[in-house]
């Protein structure tokens, strides 16, 4: 797999404003976010604390809150902001072409 590898996720209209969509691909889970300002972001889809699906969480601006233990992450950087989340999320680049969202599989940040 090269750094250019990308996969189709869904169409723009499949994700409401201020909402999250879980995307599973090749045994890995991603979270695709559409923020209130109509921008799209992508991170790992499972909380780094207990591997709970972040798509069930609360998106507040650019902060995603894990649904089980309320750990917080910044979806732009993947930074863990509140315990029990300590380890950062990986973030991913998205491309949007003609209303279709593509996920670039190579992490965009340096999260472990």
């Amino acid at each position, binding site marked *: 797999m090269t750094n250019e590898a990308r996969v189709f996720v869904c169409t723009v209209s499949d994700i409401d404003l201020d*909402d999250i969509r879980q995307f599973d691909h090749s045994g890995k889970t991603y979270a695709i976010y559409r923020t209130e300002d109509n921008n799209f972001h992508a991170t790992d889809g499972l909380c780094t*604390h*207990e*591997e709970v699906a972040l798509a*069930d*969480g*609360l998106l*507040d601006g650019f902060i995603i*809150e894990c*649904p*089980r*233990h*309320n750990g*917080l992450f910044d979806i732009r950087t993947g930074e863990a902001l*509140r*315990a*029990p989340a*300590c380890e950062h999320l990986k973030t991913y680049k998205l491309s949007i072409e003609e209303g279709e969202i593509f996920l670039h599989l190579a992490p965009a940040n340096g999260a472990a």
Partner: protein
Amino acid sequence: MGFNATRQIDGPLTKGDYSLTGPVAREAQNLGMHGADWYRCPVPRAEMKKLIKRRDYPALRDSAIWLGLLALSGALAFIFRDTLWLSILFFAIYGVLYASAGEARWHECSHGTPFKTRWMNDVLFQFASFLALRNPVVSRWSHARHHTDTYIIGLDPEISSFRPPDILRQIAAYVGLIEFPLSIKAMLRQAAGRLDEAEQVYVPMSEQPKIQRTAIIWMMVYAAVVGLCFFTQSILPALYIGLPRLYGVWFIQLVALPQHAGLLDDVFDHRLDSRTFHMNIVGRFLYWNMNYHVEHHMFPMVPYYNLPALHEIIKDDCPAPYSSLWATYREIIPTILRQQKKPSYRVVRLLPQNDLPETPKQA
């Protein structure tokens, strides 16, 4: 047992069985019981999005009322300190607001749910943690583990209903004689930079400096209170700070015991290991709606003020709620008496349509 579960342990269970580092804990880990998938009642995403939205107003309003009553009862207790019965009355109110309502606020804030504005939540969490005498860092990790592995023997550090139950210990807990000395001991240990065996399991070592810093500050506050007592030759300062954890915890003990007591352990369905019961408005204000305990455990992101609405949405998929606090004790008291002789006995709640609890996915 007549339901599907990964493991069910007959009693009697020892202290070592409940340990987070014992063989029962290792067995649970090996069976994939840690962090398992738990049953969740279906709630449409749109509904859940509304329920998990936080607002500042309800928590600000309730906190203002709580702090106002705390200050008023404390002031009246001081003003009438020479009139014994009035002094006792106002300190009794102050103690419940300090220790019991304070513990309820510590709990809710540990989830980060009451306020939309995060710093407000953090401020109240630090304050309520002091009132509850629970280190904010340790208790947040402990409670996170409790939510991951609720009443999974060997994994949940907050199990307080044992098989067989220790009835004398429970009675002593109503007047703070169990937790208060343990909390003081833990504070001194944490101030010295040491975590106990269980804390080492669920708290990352990177958190240790924060734990120690808070414990040292609290220790200094308590030392000042004790010093003030000696200086004024009066117990009054301690009646305001610290001792409410003895004389004011009866309410939180009373309402918290029904959360899980006598129900199934080692199951992956909060409908079977937690209770929801109805309560009057004063009780719900003090307890911040934690009588909706099935709902809280199943969806811990939902703030306390939205739990009644969540209850309405999922109630048809849950066992019938208890009609009152007293109704829970009508079940709990015979259960713990029976468990004295038969420690494997537990109450199995009837699920709607004879639904069976989910089996966890193996790790």
